[in-house]
C-alpha cells in the first residue's frame, strides 16, 4: 500500500470519484489550472477538463448555490471553500437552502452535495486564514458535517460523502495536509459517515476530538500512558453532525471520565453538545467533571506566534486536563 499524505488522499479520492461517476464535478476558486491554493485538485482539470473541474467566480454563494441546483438535477457536485474564514457569503446557501431543501420539499427535491472546506489554525495565518467555523453547521439540522483526522479516513470519508444523498460539509485541516502520512489503499473503499472511531482503546478516561486536535489528543494519551500508566480511550468523532452519541456514551459508561478537545471557539463548540449530552444521558456514569480543552473565546486567532500558541490547543494543555480529571 502506498504511503500518502492527507492531501494526496483527498486528491486521489477526487480523481477516483471523477473517474467512477460522470455526474461528479468540482467547482471552486482557483481549483482549475492552479490546482487549488493547497493543491488538493492538482492535475484534475488537465485530466477531466474545465467543465468538470470548474473555476468559479469569486463568490462562495455561487459555488454552493449553483452546486445545490446541479445536485437537485442529479449531478454530484463537489464544491470547494478555499478557507473556512470565507464561508459566510455561502451562509444562506448552506443553512437555508442546502440544509432545508429536502425538508421543505418533503423529500421530493434533494441535494447530494459535498462542500470541501479548508479550516484550522496553527500555521500563522492570522485572523482570517485560521478559522474553524464548524459549530454554525453542526447546529444546522439537515447538514452532515465531517472532519477526518487521517489520510485513510480522508479518502474513505470523502468518497462516502460524494456518494451520500445529503449535503455533506467536509472539513479538512490545513495543518494536516502535509504533516501526516499513512498507508492508504489504492483500491476503492469508503469509510462510513455518521460513525465515530475508537482510535485508541482505554479504560480510565474517554477523550473525544476530531481533525487536527485528534492527533494532539492521541499524543496526549500516549503521554498519559507513559507518565502515569493511565489508559485513555480516544474517540475520533469523524462525523460532527449528526454525531455518534452511542460510541461516546458507550465509552463513558465504562471510563466514567471525559475530556473533550476542539479548536472551534469554546462557547457552543461541539464540546458543549457532547458534554451536555453526557450530563443528561449518562449522568450516573460520571466520576468527575467533564473538561473541555478549547481555545479561549476570542474573535479569531491572532497572527503573532505567541498569541497563536496561547490560543491553540496543544499536547501539554490536553495532558494537564487529563491529569486533572484523573486526579479528581
Amino acid at each position, binding site marked *: 500500500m502506498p504511503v500518502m499524505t492527507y492531501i494526496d488522499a483527498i486528491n486521489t479520492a477526487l480523481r477516483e470519484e471523477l473517474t467512477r461517476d460522470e455526474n461528479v464535478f468540482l467547482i471552486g476558486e482557483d481549483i482549475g489550472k492552479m490546482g487549488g491554493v493547497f493543491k488538493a485538485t492538482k492535475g484534475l482539470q488537465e485530466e477531466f477538463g474545465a467543465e468538470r473541474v470548474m473555476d468559479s467566480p469569486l*463568490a462562495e454563494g455561487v459555488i454552493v*448555490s449553483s452546486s445545490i441546483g446541479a445536485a437537485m438535477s442529479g449531478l454530484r457536485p463537489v464544491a470547494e471553500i478555499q478557507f473556512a474564514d470565507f464561508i459566510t457569503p455561502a451562509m444562506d446557501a448552506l443553512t437555508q437552502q442546502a440544509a432545508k431543501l429536502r425538508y421543505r420539499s418533503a423529500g421530493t427535491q434533494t441535494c447530494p452535495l459535498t462542500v470541501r472546506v479548508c479550516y484550522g489554525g496553527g500555521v500563522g495565518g492570522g485572523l482570517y486564514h485560521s478559522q474553524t467555523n464548524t459549530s454554525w453547521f453542526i447546529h444546522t439540522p439537515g447538514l452532515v458535517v465531517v472532519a477526518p483526522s487521517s489520510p485513510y479516513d480522508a479518502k474513505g470519508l470523502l468518497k462516502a460523502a460524494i456518494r451520500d444523498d445529503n449535503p455533506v460539509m467536509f472539513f479538512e485541516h490545513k495543518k494536516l495536509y502535509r504533516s501526516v502520512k499513512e498507508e492508504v489503499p489504492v483500491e476503492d473503499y469508503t469509510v462510513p459517515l455518521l460513525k465515530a472511531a475508537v482510535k485508541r482503546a482505554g479504560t480510565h478516561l474517554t477523550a473525544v476530538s476530531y481533525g487536527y486536535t485528534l492527533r494532539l489528543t492521541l499524543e496526549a494519551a500516549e503521554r498519559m500512558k507513559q507518565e502515569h500508566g493511565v489508559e485513555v480511550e480516544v474517540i475520533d468523532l469523524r462525523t460532527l453532525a449528526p454525531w455518534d452519541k452511542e460510541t461516546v456514551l458507550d465509552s463513558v459508561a465504562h471510563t466514567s471520565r471525559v475530556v473533550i478537545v476542539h479548536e472551534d471557539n469554546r462557547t457552543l463548540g461541539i464540546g458543549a453538545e457532547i458534554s451536555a449530552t453526557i450530563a443528561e444521558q449518562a449522568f450516573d456514569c460520571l466520576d468527575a467533571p467533564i473538561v473541555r480543552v478549547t481555545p479561549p473565546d476570542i474573535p479569531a486567532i491572532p497572527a503573532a506566534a505567541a498569541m497563536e500558541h496561547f490560543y491553540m490547543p496543544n499536547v501539554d494543555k490536553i495532558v494537564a486536563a487529563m491529569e486533572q480529571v484523573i486526579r479528581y
Partner: protein
Amino acid sequence: MATAIASIGDEQAEIPAVIAPSLREGAEFEPLPEATLRRLYTYMLKCRTVEEKIRILFKQGRFSGNYFAAVGQEATAVGTTLDLLEKDAIAPSHRSFITHIMKGTPLKLLFAQLYGRKTSPDQGRSAPAHCGYAPLNIITPSSTIAAQLNIGTGIALAFKMRREPNVVIALSGDGSTSLGFWHEAMNFAGVQKLPMVFVVINNLYAESVPLYLQTAVTDISLKAQGYGIPGVSVDGNDVVAVYQAAREAIDRARAGEGATLLECKTYRWYGHSEIDPAKYRTPEEVQEWKQRDPIVAMEQRLEGLGLWNEAWKQELIAGFRQEIEEAVDFAEKSPVAEAEECLDHVYSFSVRERELDRKVWSPKFEVVRR
C-alpha cells in the same frame, strides 16, 4: 414612443408604455396566432379567478399563514411562462403561486398547499405560497429573497453540461435586485452562458419600499449591462408584449446563446400580503393602475379581433370555478400530517428514533419523551 406618468411613492417617475420590445434592435414581431392570443387571455383569467378565490378563503379564515397575491400582474405571470416544456425549470418567488397553473401543477395540490395538508407537495411544511413541485421541475423555494435564482443557475448548469435543450425561468421582484444573491446569479449566468431567463417583475414596490429607495435606476433591465447579457424592459401589463419578449429570450436560451434579463413593469393591486393594508400607496396611484388592468386590455384587443365576448368569458369562469371548488374540496377533506411527521425528511435516513428515544446510559434515569 408613448410614455405614461405614474406616481411611485413620493416621486414622479416615467413609466414608458413600451420600452425596447425586442432584443433585436428595431425588429417587428410576427402577429401571434389566434389560438395563442386566446390561451394567453384564458390563463390570465384563470389566474385571476384562482387568486381572488384564495383571497376570499383567507379572509374567511379557511386557511392560515398568509398569501401574496399577484392580482394585477397576470400579464407578466402568464406571458413569461406559457408553453414551457415539462423539464424546463421554474425558480419561483413568493408571488409566483399562479406560475404553477402555467406549468401544470394540479389545482388540488395547490389548494392542499394553501391548507397545509398532508397531500400538498411539501406535506404541510412551508407557508401557503412557498410551493414547489418536483415532477414539473419547480423549485420548492425558501423565503430568502432571490436565493431561488442561484439554485436556478445550478439547474441551468446541469442542462448545459448534459446538452439538454431546457431552460430555467427565474422569477424575482424589483426588491430582490438589491440583494447580493441576485447579482451573483446574474454574473454567473453571464460567465457560463447559462440557459436562463431572469424575469424581474417590477411592481414598483418591495413591500412598502418604493423603487427609488431600492435602486437608483428606473429601468431594471439596465442592470444586465454589468453581466454581459441582454436586458429588455416591457410593459408588464401587455401580455402580448411580454409573451413576445419572453419567447425571444427563451428561444435564445434554448439555442445555447445564454441568459437574458427581462424586466416587466407592472403593479400589484393589493397589499404585499393579505395582512397588509398597503397604506404607503395613494388610492389614486392604485386606481390609475387598476385602469390598466391587463385582462381588460386583452379583452378589448381580442374583441377587436372578434375573438372575445362576454359569454365566452363567463363560460371560462364557470369552468374555473368548478375546478376550484373541486380543489378546495380536495384540500379541505385532505388529512393533516401527524405531528411526529415533522421528524421526517430531515436526511435521507430517519431521525425519528434519535429524536424520540433518547437512550439513557444510566440505570436510574428513566427514558422520557421530550
